[in-house]
């Protein structure tokens, strides 16, 4: 009941004209950004953060805008996956597997409508979970000591392997590069400069937002510069606007299963939407692919990963808000934004700023409805956006990135850092090394180190403190179980892949 009354007061926060218009604008722009090939939630949120500073929005309004953009990109990501076979963002990769074949068979409208509904179901289930469980997690979190936080970060790094990449060695390499970059700057415990070369500009370390914009937006520009315009696959004609209701209904259990799996993946720090959609798809395939239709345009193969990635993006807000630990690359960007707005997400956020939290939750409910309304009838407009030529798109992305980063610190040095990260990102992508582990390493590495060293300060250097609480022991057990499960799944899919090759 307490939750309901808090939620009601949240709706009064979210329903102010300013926040309402930010919500609509955020949903719209988010869907647009998500629909553009390559631009995903991280780009959308990272590019818009400096604009929230420029417009002088308060923390609640900024968070509402960015969450709307976040959810919007998760909705929009599917559009180019289905129509162009180019994932609009990383979690939408799985949607290409059955979405594009559906479009080729002339069922593009069904696929788009179905994925819109699946996104709605997934996101709604996640927001309900957020309203029910986030306060519980927040109350439990006060018992988390530095040693427990360290265990949590260990778990996050263990799950990175599931987020990205085919080759575990490359994932590990990427995460290690991120961890190394995280050690640059003043040592937070003793105040001694590390790897700064005496340069005051990096005494505070590498600003994660600057690195993120460089890694994702600038490297994307470089990738597209390299590709010739004529490489772009032509858009598929979309005939008729009436989706078949029976197709949508036939996937209802795929949506529910996908949502639950995605939600759990989202709540796990470091897992997030990509893992949510991959797991939703692979488990749905195991559960219901009896005739081998998956991969050839099975509606359930579109519904499950779309529900999964949207549920995960909602679930990822729980650890971000109640523990101060981001559950995905995008919430990591949002976390950085909140801290720079002087809002400290964590166990006390719900006590200290209930307006902010419940205003956000209420606006997420409304964002879901808005997005469903936006997405179904406006499919045609978004489809036509696919035709925007690269030469028009990329200069805008470049301009927004440069203006945005400069406005954070008024420092040309940061622009140089951003370009350097763009080049690093480009090189890593050319070598098929996923950038997500690098980002998580950079964002979480500092906190992981700090918590380890805090635990060491408390215990006066006695390592046994790491295993002294039930929370940390439980987290280590879960980590081991997760690792065992992923090894088992990897071996199984390996075996399946082999047997399929033999059949062919």
């Amino acid at each position, binding site marked *: 009941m307490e939750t309901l009354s808090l939620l009601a007061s949240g709706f009064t926060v979210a329903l102010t004209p300013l926040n309402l218009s930010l919500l609509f604008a955020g949903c719209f722009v988010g869907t*647009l950004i998500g629909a553009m090939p390559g631009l995903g939630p991280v780009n959308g949120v990272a590019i818009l953060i400096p604009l929230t500073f420029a417009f002088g929005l308060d923390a609640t309004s900024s968070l509402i805008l960015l969450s709307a953009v976040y959810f919007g990109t998760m909705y929009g990501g599917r559009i180019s996956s289905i129509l162009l076979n180019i994932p609009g963002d990383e979690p939408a990769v799985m949607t290409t597997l059955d979405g594009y074949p559906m479009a080729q068979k002339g069922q593009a409208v069904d696929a788009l409508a179905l994925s819109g509904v699946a996104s709605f179901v997934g996101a709604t289930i996640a927001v309900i979970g957020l309203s029910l469980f986030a306060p519980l997690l927040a109350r439990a979190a006060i018992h988390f000591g530095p040693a427990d936080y360290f265990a949590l970060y260990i778990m996050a790094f263990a799950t990175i392997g599931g987020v990205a990449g085919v080759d575990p060695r490359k994932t590990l390499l990427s995460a290690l590069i991120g961890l190394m970059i995280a050690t640059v700057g003043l040592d937070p415990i003793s105040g001694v400069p590390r790897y700064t070369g005496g340069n005051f500009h990096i005494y505070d370390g590498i*600003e994660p937002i600057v690195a993120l914009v460089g890694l994702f937006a600038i490297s994307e520009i470089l990738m597209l510069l390299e590709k010739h315009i004529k490489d772009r696959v032509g858009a598929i004609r979309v005939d008729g606007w009436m989706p078949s209701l029976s197709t949508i209904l036939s996937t209802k259990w795929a949506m529910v299963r996908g949502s639950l799996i995605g939600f759990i993946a989202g709540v796990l720090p470091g897992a997030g939407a990509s893992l949510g959609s991959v797991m939703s798809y692979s488990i749905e395939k195991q559960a219901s692919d009896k005739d081998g239709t998956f991969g050839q345009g099975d509606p359930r193969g579109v519904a499950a990963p779309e529900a999964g990635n949207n549920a995960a993006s909602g679930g990822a807000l729980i650890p971000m808000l109640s523990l101060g630990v981001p559950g995905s690359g995008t919430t990591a960007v949002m976390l950085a934004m909140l801290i720079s707005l002087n809002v400290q997400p964590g166990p006390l956020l719900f006590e200290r700023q209930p307006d902010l939290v419940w205003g956000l939750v209420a606006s997420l409910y409304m964002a879901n409805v808005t997005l469903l309304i936006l997405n179904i009838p406006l499919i045609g407009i978004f489809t036509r956006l696919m035709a925007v030529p690269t030469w028009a798109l990329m200069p805008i992305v470049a301009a927004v990135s440069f203006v945005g980063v400069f406005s954070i610190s008024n420092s040309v040095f940061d622009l140089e850092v951003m370009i350097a990260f763009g080049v690093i990102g480009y090189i890593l992508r050319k070598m098929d090394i996923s950038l997500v582990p690098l980002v998580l390493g950079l964002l979480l590495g500092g906190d992981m180190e700090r918590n380890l060293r805090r635990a060491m*300060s408390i215990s006066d250097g006695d390592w046994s403190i790491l295993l002294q609480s039930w929370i940390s022991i439980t987290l280590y057990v879960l980590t081991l179980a997760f690792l065992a499960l992923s090894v088992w799944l990897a071996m199984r899919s390996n075996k399946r892949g082999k047997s399929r090759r033999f059949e062919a």
Partner: protein
Amino acid sequence: MRVAAIWTSKLGMISAGFMAFAALPADATECIAPSNPGGGWDFTCRTIGRILTELDLVDGNVQVTNMPGGVGAVTYAMVASERSDDADLIVATSTVGITQIAQGKYPAGVDAMRWLGMLGADVGVVAVAADSEIQSMADLNEALKADPSSLTTAGSSSIGGWDHIRLLIAAREGGVEDLPAIRWVQFDGGTDAVTQLIGGQVDVVSTDISEIGGFVESGDIRLLGVMSDERIPAFSDAPTMIEQGIEMTGYNWRGLYTGGDVSDDAYNTWVSNLETLYNSENWQTAAVEFGLVPIWRGGDDFEAYIREQEKVTADISRDIGVIQ
């Protein structure tokens, strides 16, 4: 047509973004906050900038620029090398900045700038969990004298930072000798440290009152002593250090400096304008809302205070081995 409409709205947003950055007249008064938006230095610049305009002490608006980096070192280096004679520039600073200078973490010493004045201060406090056995500063210092490593102390600064240093000054004045043996745990903010205090991970927290006042009100934590000359009105039950026989104060003051080559005339104008601002209703209200105690020190008085604080901080930093 529809596509065109989408692009117009998108371009509109972007150009609105551009315009927000372009609105900066060339000779406007500028206040640099050497940090990201939010937090103490940003508050100093934004509030003082607003009130300077409200009181007509400057022409037009005061442009606030965020220039984070090196806990203020980036800004310090820039002002020293590029804008040392710019009389239209003021920079926010605080005890944190002086602590950095005293420990040699800025590119130049205090003589590189002209110090205008302090306008308010946050008050340092020492707190324990509500159910702690420690009832007073005397209890705390006795425990630390008997075994300096028996208690875990924490706050929002790194080792040698102001939260740490002022706790050690209180301990030293209370007769504790082995200061380096006292365990210190850094957290990212006062509230993080207090969370750990409530959760029982640490025993004592030293930090500013403004950030953690809510937990005192909620009864989760108890104040052992406040580091001000007089008791804080909002927490009048908590005794000062001086009342408990510990001769020290631990303010985290907020103030401003300008370039080292600014003329005496321009410097004196700034000092008198800031004193006018300090005495205004506008500032007194804004400071209290932000949890500050209004305190004024300006001009030569402030210059002398800065040099004394730098010396005291450098001395204790040497005692605990933070600097050689």
